[in-house]
């Protein structure tokens, strides 16, 4: 181990990342122990060790359902969605060179939700042939394209000659979000009771619907998002200097930007498809980590994924317990934590937003 170099925060990043791994594991275990059934920690530990040892006949059906069909998939979905949302936020902020860019704030989530709602409401009607062809994948795919379309539009509107205007980006994001929201609202208006119940879930977000089936469906997409990290990290650092500077440093910026937009849309699309709209994770997590380990994406991105996963699992635990046996929509919790955070960044960076 060499002496730390002034200004080199990679050593600290390694320590923080290792701590975040431990924290994620700890929070996941706690999450498995929390719930309205009143199962004790010791019981959960016993069940887990039974399962690991392969003694499945020793587990009662009720316990099996509670732990392995409800809590485990729910915790896993929370981890996947939290990691994806936080990563999408970090990458989008790097792309737009602004710490305030968040898929939820600038309409990308609304676009993804529109895609999902289109499938729910029109899936039985004239989209039926498409639905039959895509099957269960229709929902995430529609959400992906909804998110992709919004991100592309937003980038095209906010960027002129390689310079992204922050004010334009935020305002265009509000407008795009409003358009997507209006169409969504219209679809909700003309939907039937069954669809309505499904739709309510989207608007507020939640991990309540987690099943193994959804986990299996979401995992390949989110693994794809994780795989993009090493290919985008150095390029994102260079982009912070500006687009021309990134090209001068040898990066194919056009390819880089396309890849980032694609990955952000993928992460948001899958998250929205399986957990609804959950805001502010993408803004809080990268911002906190930048303060602690610095903004270099090679270390920021993995740490962001870990802390995002942890944060969403914690938020979900709060939802499940605070009004038990009822459940709070998770969007309420993340917004309560995230919105004041956003305001605090805004207050300190007021000069950056020159409208």
């Amino acid at each position, binding site marked *: 181990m060499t002496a730390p170099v002034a200004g080199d925060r990679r050593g600290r990043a390694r320590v923080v990342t290792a701590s975040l791994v431990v924290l994620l594991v700890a929070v996941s275990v706690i999450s498995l122990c929390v719930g309205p059934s009143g199962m004790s920690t010791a019981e959960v530990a016993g069940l887990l060790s039974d399962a690991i040892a392969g003694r499945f006949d020793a587990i009662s059906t009720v316990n099996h359902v509670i732990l392995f069909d409800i809590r485990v998939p729910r915790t896993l979905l929370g981890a996947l969605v939290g990691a994806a949302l936080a990563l999408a936020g970090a990458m989008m902020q790097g792309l737009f060179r602004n710490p305030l860019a968040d898929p939820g704030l600038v309409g990308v989530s609304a676009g993804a939700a529109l895609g999902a709602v289109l499938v729910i409401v029109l899936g039985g009607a004239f989209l039926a042939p498409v639905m039959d062809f895509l099957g269960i994948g229709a929902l995430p795919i529609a959400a992906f394209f909804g998110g992709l379309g919004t991100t592309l539009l937003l980038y095209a509107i906010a960027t002129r000659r390689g310079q992204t205007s922050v004010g334009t980006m935020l305002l265009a994001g509000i407008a795009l979000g409003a358009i997507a929201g209006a169409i969504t609202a219209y679809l909700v208006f003309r939907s039937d009771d069954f669809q309505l119940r499904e739709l309510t879930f989207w608007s507020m977000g939640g991990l309540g619907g987690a099943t193994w089936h959804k986990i299996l469906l979401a995992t390949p997409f989110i693994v794809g998002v994780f795989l993009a990290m090493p290919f985008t990290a150095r390029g994102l*650092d*260079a982009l912070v*200097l500006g687009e021309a500077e990134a090209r001068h440093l040898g990066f194919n910026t056009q390819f880089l930007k396309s890849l980032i937009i694609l990955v952000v849309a993928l992460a948001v699309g899958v998250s929205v498809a399986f957990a609804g709209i959950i805001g502010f994770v993408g803004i809080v997590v990268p911002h906190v980590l930048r303060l602690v380990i610095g*903004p270099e994406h090679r270390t920021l991105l993995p740490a962001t994924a870990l802390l995002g996963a942890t944060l969403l699992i914690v938020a979900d635990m709060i939802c499940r317990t605070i009004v038990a046996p009822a459940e709070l929509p998770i969007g309420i919790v993340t917004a309560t934590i995230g919105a004041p955070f956003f305001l605090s960044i805004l207050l300190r960076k007021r000069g*950056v937003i020159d409208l």
Partner: protein
Amino acid sequence: MLEVEALTVRAGQRAILDNVSLSVAPGELTAVVGPNGAGKSTILKAVTGELRAAQGIIKLDGKSLAAYRPYELAQRRAVLPQASSLAFPFTVHEVVRLGTSGALSPADRAARVAAALIRVDLNGFGGRFFQELSGGEQQRVHLARVLCQVWEPIVGGVPRYLFLDEPTASLDLRHQLLTLDTARNFARAGGGVIAILHDLNLAALYADKIIVVSAGRIAASGTPREVLTDAMMRAVFGVSVHVGGVPADAPFILPHSAHAA
């Protein structure tokens, strides 16, 4: 050798550059001077590959610029931007490290960063936040980053190039001299340097060759003595001046006899 032939760049109907030809030889410091809006920055943007919508031929060491991949170009030339702000709290060390090659070991990269910071007179600034530095200090951090990118002026017999867009713009006199010393040393060691300069005295002092740009055309080109004439000053800069003349009653500071203390 950087060669530009018949370069024309248009913005709408107006030609920003009209049939410009020039060359930058390795081993030399070439200064580009001219009044505001003459097209100096456009020339730099074209030869760095930033500006694609250009007519004409641009060749770097015999090969068309467009035929280079971005990473190949990055290994051959580095570009110092005029001003560049950062949205995120990078330390000086982290910014400079962006210029170092990923092929180096972490220890070598750290050593390279430290050496580059010494060269731009920012020794010990590695741990400072880039955003908290003054404009002139920020510019020198970028110079250090750019130096890291093309650390050896010649690699395997192939020269490398430094493209500097007003490298002295926000610097005090001492650091103007230091910066141009660094650029000239780079050229003396076999690399090529093209720098946009506003200060004609500095251009006269450091450049092996001066290219005068006026209204999108090359107005003059040659050694400082050939180019900086009373006639050129009047025709291009619209200033009636006696080159080499000494003001009679006002104090003046000439960098010609100065060197950084």
